């Protein structure tokens, strides 16, 4: 896996950290998923089943899930941008620092290149960072997709690829989780009038 490709998909995740609007975050993760899907098809393993699996994943993660999230954004309009988050420069600095630290500390994962090792770890870490730094429920759902794209990148860089049933199973589980997250987001929005997850802070000991 080329260094340039890894840099591009990681940069897209970093862009989500600083994106102001939810629609922009959804579009960015869609582009990232499509990039990974196209990579899977182009660098396929020469087997029709692998091509089919790659196609299903491309449609599912690159098109259907982002469309679902875009629909969710339309159905849960925010009266204003969710305020109070860290400034964009601070967010990206924190995200980059945490990601660089994780990438530097992680030993070899045995994938097809060191860049792939680092890219997979970077995306999983950035997925978590997005969920922590961004308060909107939609951003946190986008964080799921970014982290899962990190897992997908690792699968693409695994010599021989992963078994098809695991790849499709992971996609199925992801669809369920995102659908449930969307149901929660709508209900949270109905109940509180906003998708800002900081309103969910009543349960403490």
């Amino acid at each position, binding site marked *: 896996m080329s260094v340039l490709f890894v840099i591009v998909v990681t940069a897209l995740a970093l862009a989500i950290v600083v994106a102001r609007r939810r629609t922009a975050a959804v579009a960015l993760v869609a582009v990232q998923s499509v990039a990974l899907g196209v990579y899977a098809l182009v660098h396929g393993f020469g087997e029709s089943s692998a091509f089919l699996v790659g196609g299903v994943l491309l449609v599912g993660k690159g098109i259907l899930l982002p469309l679902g999230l875009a629909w969710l954004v339309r159905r849960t309009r925010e009266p204003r941008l969710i305020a109070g988050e860290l400034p964009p420069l601070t967010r990206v600095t924190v995200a980059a620092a945490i990601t660089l630290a994780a990438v530097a500390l992680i*030993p070899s994962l045995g994938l097809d290149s060191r860049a792939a090792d680092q890219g997979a770890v970077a995306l999983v870490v950035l997925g978590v960072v997005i969920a922590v730094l961004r308060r909107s429920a939609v951003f946190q759902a986008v964080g799921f997709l970014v982290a899962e794209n990190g897992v997908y990148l690792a699968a693409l860089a695994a010599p021989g690829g992963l078994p098809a049933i695991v790849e499709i199973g*992971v996609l199925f589980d992801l669809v369920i989780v995102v659908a449930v997250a969307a*149901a929660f987001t709508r209900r949270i929005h109905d*109940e509180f009038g906003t998708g800002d997850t900081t309103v969910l802070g009543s*349960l403490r000991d």
Partner: protein
Amino acid sequence: MTEALVIAAPACALLTGAATWLARTARQADLLNSAGAVLTALLTLALAGIALTDASHPRHGAWWMLDAAGGVFLAVIAVIGLLSALVAPSQLASSGRGLVRAARGRGMYYAAYHTFWAALIVVPLVDNLGLAWLLVEATTGASALLVAYSGTRGALEAGWKYLVLTTFGLAIAMLGIIVLYVAIAPGDGTLGTLDWQSIARAAPGLRGGPAVVAFVLIVAGLATKVGWAPVHNWLPDAHSEAPPPVSALLSAALLPTVVLVTWRVLIALGPALTPGTASALVLAFGLVSLAVAVPFLWRSMAWKRLLAYSSLEHMGILAVGIGFATPLATAGVVVHVAGHALAKSLGFYAAAPLLRHAPRAHDRAVRGLAFANPSTAGAVGVSLGALAAMPPSPLFISELLILLGGVAAHEIAVTVAAALLLALGFLGLAQALVDGLVGEPRVRRWRSGRSGVRMRRLTLVCGTLLLALTAVACLLPGSGVVTHLMAGIA
């Protein structure tokens, strides 16, 4: 025959879920739920019976296996799943506005419940780490909906927190599984590469970085789903906000089932690491969980939150037990899984009438329950007494076995630390028991009628099973079953 049961048990749960979803009335849904639950439990118990009566001959299929360890967990999942399904109609009756429209609420609850139960039944049966991950992840969506079923703000918060934390945790575990897959079979792996036995066969040749990274990522990721500290933040909220039957299934079946997956990873992959490294990570999770739980057991807590922190404590004990990995500790783990399941689920079932008649018990500790309602007080007393490991609770025997197992493993420092934390936890729960039953009453007396009869029956069933388990616990150490359980993997 066995293969037919392996398919029939989860299929029955799934079909029951679909049928209840399509039911036209709440009464139809209740009847279908009860009938389907009885059949699912019987099929699952038959599997457990096959596994435990002939423990020396594990059975294998194309994608499944049935061994002694799986048999124990299947029995627990069957019993708790059945009890939670049977008590659901009465415990859901008082629910108000829910997560979905009231007309669909009951059907949605049963559909999600039986889907969740079906996934739980298959986890101990699958002979593959990748498939086990898929099933554990599959429990997340259905169980998150169930946690938020009441639709209250607290339930939404708890469900969201559970969904977010466990999803990210499992993504990390999947990254570890990919690393393991590549390490075992670089370039020519198949689904069978992740079979438990394949991992165990390959482990001794896997020495080095990728094996350590894979183990740490998988165990740390699964820890979020078990609710081991310090990645347990969702656990107290989800257990306290979910409907009581769901809290019971989460605490008594889901958490131990994920512990089983971790246990199998430890046994299969542990030999790839420097001796002691793998168990040290699990022991660390166990001790940290105990240390985090104990201070909360000393505080004056609302009933369901007290039970939730008790779950954290007991998952910590299980981690310590599987970390010791000696025959005594293994016998203790098995007894503990079953005893904790019965005692904890009874406690959660008692929460339904308690919260219906004393809603403030949702937010603050219950006191003087013996004066308010003897039926509920009986259930609370049996539950908390057993969870505190007061003799003749089987948890007293299991904790003793685990600690003796620690001595046998020459893990003296860990054993002493665990014993101290368990003693402190006992004192906290004993105080809660005394205050809860005979403290200055905070709740008004209520007449329970039919629900009181149901609660007394439940208490009798769970109490009898707990005593039977105590007898089994005394016979288990040194038996052949433990030898087969020690294998952990067929």
